[in-house]
């Protein structure tokens, strides 16, 4: 089954739309769903032109395609998603793929903050850039992402994979400040530069194939290793947190 949601131009507004109802599973029982704009509840067809092709009886067979101008104001798309596919032909708003446990989200544009926050499984592909707190935990929480994969082909903002405890995060461009902060498990790979990686890490592995700026002094240099054809410098830390994580960087610079 393929559900196409084309955002109506009239539905564009400054106030974001909370669209946690847009999850493949929900479309098995029809399109009679509602979303919220501020304190107003709107029917799905007030915001989108809805087209359904084919039918399905399990979420894995559902693909939701979201298109149109203004999709960057849609929040919480794919929250608690457990199977199927969501394709966004454009940008997406904050909190896309929160708590996701299975299935695939593919974003052709950029993603706003908190992409794949606290996700436990499934795959998120972002063809553009991801904003801050991509694949991270939430305020005060001890565990962020626990499983699954997030791959960003552009750049990522600050606090990438903060509190990650499992799963894999790959960023092909630069990452911002505090990448992998409070990491206790899982794998974070940044193909270009980032700053202050893996601050206060307890466990897990963090790879920086570019330069780590503002490298923290609380990591102990072990030596060099060969990893996927690259020569990387291996650190263990964060010693300040009695951590035993592995940080691999191509190059690093301490603060002056």
């Amino acid at each position, binding site marked *: 089954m393929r559900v196409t949601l084309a955002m109506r131009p009239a539905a564009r507004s400054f106030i974001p739309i909370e669209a946690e109802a847009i999850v493949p599973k929900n479309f098995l029982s029809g399109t009679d769903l509602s979303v919220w704009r501020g304190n107003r509840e709107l029917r799905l067809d007030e915001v989108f032109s809805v087209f359904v092709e084919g039918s399905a009886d399990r979420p894995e067979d559902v693909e939701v395609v979201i298109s149109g101008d203004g999709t960057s104001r849609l929040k919480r798309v794919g929250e608690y998603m457990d199977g199927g596919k969501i394709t966004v032909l454009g940008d997406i708003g904050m909190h896309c793929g929160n708590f996701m446990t299975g299935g695939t989200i593919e974003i052709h544009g950029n993603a706003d903050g908190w992409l794949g926050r606290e996700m436990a499984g499934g795959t998120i592909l972002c063809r553009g850039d991801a904003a801050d707190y991509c694949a991270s935990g*939430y*305020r005060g*929480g001890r565990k962020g992402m626990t499983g699954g994969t997030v791959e960003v082909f552009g750049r990522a903002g600050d606090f990438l994979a903060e509190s990650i405890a499992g799963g894999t995060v790959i960023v092909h461009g630069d990452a911002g400040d505090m990448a992998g902060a409070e990491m206790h498990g899982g794998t974070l790979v940044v193909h270009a530069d980032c700053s202050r990686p893996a601050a206060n890490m307890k466990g897990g592995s963090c790879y920086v194939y570019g330069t780590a700026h503002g490298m923290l002094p609380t990591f102990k240099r072990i030596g060099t290793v060969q990893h996927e054809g690259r020569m990387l410098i291996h650190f263990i830390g964060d010693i300040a947190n009695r951590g035993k994580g592995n940080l691999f960087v191509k190059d690093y610079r301490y603060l002056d």
Partner: protein
Amino acid sequence: MSELLIRNACVIDPLRGVNAETMDIAIRDGRIVEDVSGAAEVIDVHGALTLPGGIDSHTHICGTKVNFGRYMSPEDMRAGRTPRRGPMHSTSGYSVPTTYGNSYRYSAMGYTTLLEGAMAPLEARHTHEEFTYTPLQDTMANTLFDGNWGIMEAIRDGDTKRVAAIIAWTLTAVKGFGVKLTNPGGTEAWQWGKNVSCIRDPVPYFEVTPSEIIRSVVEANELLGLPHSVHLHCNNLGTPGNYTCTLGSLGLIPDLNKKRQTLYATHVQFHAYGGSGWKDFCSKSEPIARFVNMRPQIVIDMGQVMFGRTTTMTADGPMEFNLYRLHHDKWSNHDVELETGSGIIPVIYRRKNLVNSIMWAIGLELALLTKSPWQCLLTTDNPNGAPFVRYPEIVALLMSKKYRDAEFATVHPDTGGRVPLPAIERELDWYEIAVMTRAGQAKALGIQDLGKGHLGPGAEADIAVYPIRVDEVDPSVDYQKVIEAFGRTEYTIKRGRVVSRRGECLVDGSNATFWVRPKVSDAYDMGKDPDFIEKFDRYYTVRMRNYPVQKEYLNRNRCIETEAGI
């Protein structure tokens, strides 16, 4: 004039010696009366268990410390969220909920009066502001005097009357209710990076010992004729082997008051530990309970620990630092100028942890081994041992050996060798539970004469009707029914109005704050004492004239005037 008649109530009212008698309760204008006219609204409760409104004599629900617990644990706010509904505001939080969350959840459990366990005098305004937004319960605040410079200097000079005078001035200024000592001397020592190890250790600079502080403040408290006794959180909380220190502190207390106890020792579970370290940690509830059984001048509360997530918060700063070093999670620490301090950390009590399992057992043992229920009250030191929403489970554990055994089978396997709990057969009855959750509190706080904690004519019409029939349910077998009944009242009535019905709060309430003003002679009025004024203006960051809490910070309030002997 509003009238209400509750018909066919199965009343347990320990302060009047009523035990499960079916009667009608007449209410006029918020007070219980002999009878009402035929025009009164009638509620027929069909023999449901009816008790005076619950009173929590030690809970942390309002004030800077609680609010900092909210502030540093945003993850706690993700639990327990409820939307706005009728007159109910939206709420959130589990161990440190919003003020409305506290108020609604307490009300659903039949609680109508709460005592905030620790208010730093300098930060009293915050506590009173939050009281205003705890609309369904009357409130009062214990005021911290554990590290008060003026008091420690007066104790060093051996001047108990001056101690009393400073307490009187401060209570009046901050609109406090009782005197709280939290780790007396220890919080002040913490400002020097130290602690006191027990009651004979001197506090740095002031050179007074905790035992001197406890003894003088107890005497001063009686000189002032305060309704409540001194409320003591002993030194050395949470340390293995601390029970000797607790016994030493309790042993300092003479019997000075005929109407009530002379010392209220709070959350004694945290102070009843044996062993020399965490490896041989064990329960010492037996010596503590035996000691309390022999001394009518002491009342304790349980400070029960229940398994799960919660937040610990206390004015005992050094203890929280030690806890932080065990848990290695978040920690906050505060210093309150010339008065006290505080610390907060979130914790999780786990069944598979031996120390936590022993702590769980100790609280229950204290309640079961203390012969008189008037001397051991039911609390969790909310939220330190567990959030108060766990009270119904504690009631059921105390009433059912079967439930205790079932729970005991799930805790750490080595617990059996460290605690006497499995050997205790006692099961509390409904009457004893009524004592431990309302009547005992009213007596211990000295508020039964104000019409709290009983249902006699003239009493405030604070009533909890629980959906359970005591003649039909055997609590030792049907403990699940007990948990359900105590978790949600059929009716909670506050000052003659139904405020909560089956868990739904119906009105926005109009609570009152109780505070104390001891009348002292001019010679002991600290507001006119040149030495006190000079020290105040030299060391505090606020001017003395700006220190007292203005009336505008209090909602409805009731001032209790006492005749002081100075």
